[in-house]
């Protein structure tokens, strides 16, 4: 059964912006699918609102639409493209849900388009718990007892069946949003109410608790001939009760006998058949009662998933690629295994190593949010580690997290809190588990409190036990044993009271060095042709380095807020460009979600933590000509100086120039020397010093520890009292580095410049104007390219400063400069001589792949040789909008500030500013209303500024409501407005109004300390009820423009990147006029 000849064109739906629960694993899967389909000669069109993805690079598809993922937009694209089929299974739940909606609306039927990969029924059965439960009953499989409820009363009835603790799962929400575990009736009422509210169909499932049971996942595939394989089994270290996305997970399963495993496999086969996934991959979750072995089915996802990305990386079996090929008719046995080249894909990978995935959380960003882990996923990234044993992989994974632990340790643990930490899971639990083991707690005791299998506890016990032998001088035997268990040099240094450099030297002297083994899908049964490697301490090394010219690219490690897919995009581009220049490329990274860790992206892949030790080991083995550190964000940048000192050639901008830009003192001097204005600033290492500096530069001040990423621990401080509080916390955050204090430029306009330089020339890729005022982290700001109301003379100043900085720093590669304009004066805020978050955005907008250009510069090709000599331009508006995870962190304030909080971004494109903004907001999930009621509440300072906005809303037919002060102000200016109570004034108040869905738009700028509670309540409820809430005047103004444009022309025009960037010739040949469809 070869390829289905009736499929000649396919539309692939992406997953949109990075959010918690749906991250760059879908760029990985989408990219694989698109590549596979293209290689089959299929015309591929693609839609994804996320410009930071590799899949939206114009060369991957025939037509690439960076457009909002809404049914209207998809319909418009389908109208234009008329593909034979739509593939929705590589774009997460977002893509599946869209496909279902389009199917319900009859779009596929009307246009004669087939849904491939998963049928509508399969999606519905997979997602609708009621249908799923019925399906499981039909094939005789056990599921936890449960009842659906559509009201709180029904929920209470259901509780009588399930008992406490009970799991509450809202139907049809992403990543379990709004779900939870209730241990008492109060919690039950609260969680059930929230779940009912959040479910788009107002339904929750009340379920028998299987908390503490062993949790397993099988990644399976099926083809249309009913061939079935299990690609990977995964066992969760953290048992049932913690979302698998928040669990440490291990592949393959460790504690199942073959008998139990095969029962699970048979069940998985029956499930994928019954649910009706004809072709492709599915993820099926099971729970096993550790006391009796009772097996229950938890859920199945009829698509590729975060776990399937992990499984692909864990085994070398590319699930998404194969799913795409199966969807167009191939059978598993007709597809070759890329790694062995001689065996077919119709087999089950086997591992001769252990893979551990550890989540990375960002609770430090959401201080008011509870770090307790449960059924709702809260982590923002993950790290994967490969070792020959669980112990080795676990310790490699822990140091790969870059949380400063270097493995276990490095953290102050409070022994008095062990019991609490074991009982209430949070990100530190694993550290406390080990501490308890060190203190002699029994495995049974810990198992009872955590549900963690005793086999895992025994493994950690071995680490704890060996640690006791590592306190003195190390002999070769003990050192080797420690390394085999995954202890890092840094950890060994800390334990034995020496330095990492000393441990490294001793280790090398004693010949205790790592070897590299290959991930080959088959446990060495067949020869591997793909250098996909991991380190371990064994005898035989399979690295087999070549003697080609080669470069090494350091990736960005686990995703976190402020360092995510954008940097992976740059790393991939760097690799592609070096490869095109004839170099062998070597990628080092430990993030399983990414495209960079696809074994296909670079010539060689080392799946390793990005620490000095691990990177240096690879360098010593491979001896590359140079190492590229400017694409992966702060992670590799932090290694620049240590690697440089170790004699490693750093490609591109010199480590000294990087230090010059990062070191505030040096940088400040440089700016003075160049005569470029900067906000008054100073550094302080003590509170007294901080007070002096702040007094000198004048409040408000922006304070932060040095070497920050994503504005971590950054704050705007208005008074000395706040400064004292901040310094106490920040100094603890980063003991080695001083605090930086800058005068904060109030009401300034902020701009981001991305440029590329070769030492001779600086070419500006784009100047992005922030829509919010300075003070909001650039990653959290909406921004527009090109600038729309910045005077040319300021732009010229900005270009000039960028050029001079680039030349003076000797930048070779990418640089990003942040500017602010206050009172007609242009200031430089900071320079980052490395790839920035906006590089992919600008590359998509301009059609020039900046990271590739930078890589070629590093490879020795000047900008002139590349034909890149003029600043880049764009012919329409490209607007970037951030996406926030607030819904996942009940309790956290949504107010934006200098600390970055967004997880992802989208792009809106139009020739009209308002439409571009509306599309960006729509893509970010905040649909701009075109009519209804607007609530306005602003501080005194903003009242004048908000007046024209309110007037415009009124003119366009919006009813205005406002709190007392604002309402009085409007009335005084002749603007009709209804007054409404603040939360603390009486009822019904504004939050009541939001809850009764009587408000469509909110303009709420911070009113200050006094009404903090009120503002917070408004914003939180706006999030919960999906009301667009604007917290700055500039964003409100942009929204008004968007509303006006939407009312005039609608927002369903779509245009592909290929059309935008097509040369004029092609443009005249093809019909490139945007199709305008009226908005529904």
């Amino acid at each position, binding site marked *: *059964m070869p390829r289905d000849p009736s499929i000649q064109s396919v539309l692939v739906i992406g997953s949109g912006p990075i959010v918690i629960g749906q991250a760059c694993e879908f760029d990985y899967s989408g990219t694989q699918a698109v590549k596979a389909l293209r290689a089959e000669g299929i015309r591929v069109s693609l839609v994804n609102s996320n410009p930071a993805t590799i899949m939206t690079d114009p060369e991957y598809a025939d037509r690439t639409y960076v457009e909002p993922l809404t049914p209207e937009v998809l319909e418009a694209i389908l109208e234009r493209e008329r593909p034979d089929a739509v593939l929705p299974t590589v774009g997460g739940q977002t893509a599946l849900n869209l496909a279902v909606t389009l199917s319900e609306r009859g779009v596929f039927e009307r246009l004669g388009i087939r849904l491939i990969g998963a049928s509508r029924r399969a999606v519905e059965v997979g997602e609708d718990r009621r249908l799923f439960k019925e399906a499981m009953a039909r094939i005789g499989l056990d599921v936890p007892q449960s009842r659906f409820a559509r009201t709180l009363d029904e929920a209470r009835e259901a509780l009588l069946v399930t008992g406490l603790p009970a799991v509450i799962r809202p139907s049809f929400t992403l990543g379990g949003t709004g779900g939870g575990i209730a241990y008492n009736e109060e919690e039950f009422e609260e969680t059930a109410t929230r779940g009912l509210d959040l479910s788009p169909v107002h339904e929750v499932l009340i379920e028998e608790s299987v908390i503490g049971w062993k949790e397993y996942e099988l990644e399976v595939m099926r083809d249309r*001939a*009913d*061939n*079935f*394989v299990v690609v990977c*089994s995964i066992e969760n270290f953290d048992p049932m009760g913690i979302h698998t996305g928040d669990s440490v997970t291990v592949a*393959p*399963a*460790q*504690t*199942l*006998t*073959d*008998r139990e*495993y*095969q029962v699970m*496999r*048979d069940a998985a086969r029956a499930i994928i058949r019954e649910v009706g996934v004809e072709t492709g991959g599915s993820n099926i979750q099971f729970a096993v009662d*550790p006391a*009796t*072995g009772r097996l229950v089915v938890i859920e199945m996802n009829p698509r590729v998933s975060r776990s399937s990305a992990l499984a692909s990386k864990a085994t070398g079996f590319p699930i998404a690629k194969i799913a795409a090929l199966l969807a167009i008719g191939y*059978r598993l*046995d007709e597809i070759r295994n890329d790694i062995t080249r*001689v*065996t*077919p894909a*119709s*087999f*089950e*990978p*086997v*591992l*001769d*190593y*252990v893979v551990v995935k550890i989540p990375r959380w960002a609770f430090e960003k959401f201080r008011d949010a509870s770090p307790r882990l449960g059924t709702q996923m809260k982590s923002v990234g993950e790290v994967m580690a490969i070792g*020959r*044993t*669980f112990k080795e992989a676990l310790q490699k994974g822990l140091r790969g997290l870059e949380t400063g632990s270097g493995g276990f340790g490095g953290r102050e643990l409070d022994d008095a809190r062990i019991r609490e930490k074991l009982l209430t899971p949070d990100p530190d639990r694993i550290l406390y588990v080990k501490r308890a083991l060190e203190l002699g707690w029994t495995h049974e005791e810990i198992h009872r409190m955590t549900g963690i*299998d*005793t*086999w895992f*506890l*025994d*493994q950690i016990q071995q680490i704890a036990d*060996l640690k006791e*032998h590592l306190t003195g001088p190390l002999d070769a*035997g*003990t050192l080797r*044993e420690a390394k085999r268990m995954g202890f890092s040099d840094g950890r060994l240094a800390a334990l034995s009271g020496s330095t990492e450099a000393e441990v490294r030297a001793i280790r090398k002297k004693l010949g205790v060095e790592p070897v590299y083994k290959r991930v080959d899908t*088959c*446990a*060495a*049964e*067949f*020869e591997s042709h793909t250098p996909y490697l991991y380190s371990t301490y*064994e*005898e*035989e090394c*399979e690295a087999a380095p070549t003697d080609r010219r080669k470069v090494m690219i350091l990736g960005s490690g686990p995703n976190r807020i402020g360092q995510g897919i954008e940097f992976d995009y740059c790393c991939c581009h760097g690799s592609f460009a070096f490869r095109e220049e004839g170099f062998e490329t070597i990628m080092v990274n430990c993030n399983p979600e990414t495209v960079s860790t696809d074994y296909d992206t670079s010539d060689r892949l080392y799946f390793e933590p990005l620490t000095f030790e691990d990177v240096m080991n690879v360098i010593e083995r491979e001896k590359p000509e140079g190492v590229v550190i400017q694409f992966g964000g702060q992670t590799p940048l932090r290694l620049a100086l240590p690697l440089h000192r170790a004699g490693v050639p750093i490609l591109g901008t010199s480590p000294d120039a990087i230090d010059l830009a990062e070191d505030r003192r040096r940088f400040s001097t440089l700016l003075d020397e160049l005569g470029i204005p900067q906000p008054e600033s100073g550094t302080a290492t003590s509170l007294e010093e901080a007070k002096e500096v702040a007094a000198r530069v004048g409040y408000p001040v922006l304070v932060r520890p040095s070497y920050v990423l994503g504005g971590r621990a950054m704050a705007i401080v208005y008074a000395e009292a706040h400064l004292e509080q901040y310094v106490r916390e920040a100094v603890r955050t980063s003991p080695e580095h001083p605090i930086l204090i800058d005068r904060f430029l109030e009401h300034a306009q902020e701009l981001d410049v991305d440029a590329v330089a070769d030492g001779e020339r600086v070419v500006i890729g784009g100047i992005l104007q922030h829509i919010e005022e300075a003070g909001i982290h650039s990653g959290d700001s909406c921004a527009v390219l090109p600038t729309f109301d910045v005077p040319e003379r300021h732009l010229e100043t900005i270009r000039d400063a960028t050029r001079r900085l680039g030349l003076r720093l000797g930048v070779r590669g990418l640089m990003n400069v942040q500017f602010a304009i206050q009172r007609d004066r242009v200031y430089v805020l900071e320079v980052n001589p490395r790839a920035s978050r906006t590089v992919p955005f600008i590359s998509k907008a301009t059609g020039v792949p900046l990271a590739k250009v930078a890589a070629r510069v590093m490879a020795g090709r000047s900008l002139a040789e590349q034909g890149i000599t003029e600043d880049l331009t764009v012919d329409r508006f490209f607007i970037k909008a951030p996406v926030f995870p607030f819904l996942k962190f009940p309790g956290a304030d949504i107010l934006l500030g200098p600390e970055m909080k967004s997880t992802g971004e989208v792009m809106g494109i139009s020739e009209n500013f308002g439409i571009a903004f509306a599309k960006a907001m729509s893509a970010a999930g905040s649909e701009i209303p075109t009519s209804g009621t607007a609530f306005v509440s602003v501080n005194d300072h903003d009242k004048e500024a908000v007046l024209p906005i309110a007037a415009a809303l009124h003119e366009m037919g919006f009813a205005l409501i406002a709190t007392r002060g604002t309402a009085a102000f409007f009335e005084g200016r002749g603007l009709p407005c209804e007054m409404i109570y603040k939360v603390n004034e009486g009822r019904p108040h504004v939050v009541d109004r939001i809850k009764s869905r009587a408000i469509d738009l909110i303009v709420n700028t911070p009113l200050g300390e006094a009404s903090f509670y009120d503002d917070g309540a408004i914003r939180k409820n706006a999030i919960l009820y999906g009301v667009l809430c604007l917290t700055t005047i500039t964003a409100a103004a942009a929204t008004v423009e968007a509303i006006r444009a939407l009312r005039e022309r609608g927002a369903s025009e779509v245009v592909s990147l290929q059309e935008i960037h097509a040369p004029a010739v092609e443009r005249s040949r093809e019909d490139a006029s945007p199709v305008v469809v009226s908005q529904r």
Partner: protein
Amino acid sequence: MTHARRPAVLALEDGIVFVGNSFGRIGETSGEVVFNTALCGYQEVLTDPSYRGQIVTMTYPHIGNYGINHEDVESARPQVAGFVVREISTAASSWRASGELHAYLDEAGIVGIAEIDTRKLTRHIRSRGACRGVISALDLDPVSLVKKAQSAAAMIGADLAREVTCAEPYRYEPARDAGAAKAGVERPFHVVAYDLGMKRNILRLLTDAGCTVTVVPATTPAAEALALEPEGIFLSNGPGDPEACDYAVEASRGLIASGRPVFGICLGHQILGLACGGKTFKLKYGHRGGNHPVKNVATGQVEITAQNHGFAVDMSLFEDRAYVLTHVNLNDGTVEGFRHRDLPVFSVQYHPEASPGPHDSHYLFRDFTAAMAERRAVGAAGPLLQAGA
């Protein structure tokens, strides 16, 4: 911990030596060193008589995690000549566990070695082919051990089925309810099973498919087997070189000629291949694991199979038009199953009984009973042995 460990050495006949730690019985053993890629199911592997004479290396590094239990055994005792793992578990985590693997092997006198680079060993076997080796915790001298490895018994020409077969015929009496009712069969089919080193799960599955089984020794002549008046004959898996089992090849000719359904697995399949005029040959390093894709030629369906064999039937068998290739290995294109064009004789090289491994091929047991039912329907069977008679 570190200090309690006792060193052990694994030496191969070609001079390669691995130094690790001893586990199981402290002793010395020799055999053919092979590897198995299954991720779990080590207890079934250990107790599979087909591994007689072999030192089995598990490629998955953590072995022993769920301990051992009384149920997951394929014969009365561990059968392997030696056991090689990367890491032997110090904990046994399972609600069914009755003990730890280490102690189990010690009691059974199985010598093991842990903490060696099993991937290196596997790659070595892959490129060089299966070879003889010695594990010792008593003699740690590489030179002496390599010499011992060189003088260990070779697998080619080894008649090991004779060693592992039962001494006397016996009726298999399943502990649980007989399978006939379960399989919906009115009257159970009487099967005579040649025990060439039979795994227990075969007996369980035959019973589940509606058979009563009389197990006979490997050396039973055809006439004796037929005198038991079976409706079908089963030839089991087992260790060693099929060509050495000339007695069983001879018997098979008579059994085939009887017109009764004959079903063979693994060694049984190879012996049938020889009886049908085919040839067998030794694979470079064999197939051992639970993930091998086998295509059913008739349906085109792919089965993920359990495998454990070092020899295979040569494709030349099909030069005789009387035989049809039914199953083929998709990894290397070797013969995985054949049948007689006209007679109800069929066999597979792989292990449909799994244990350990996937259950994709259980249908073969139903095919066997279907053949017996067909024969019963046309009345060709002689007087039937009543259940329990």
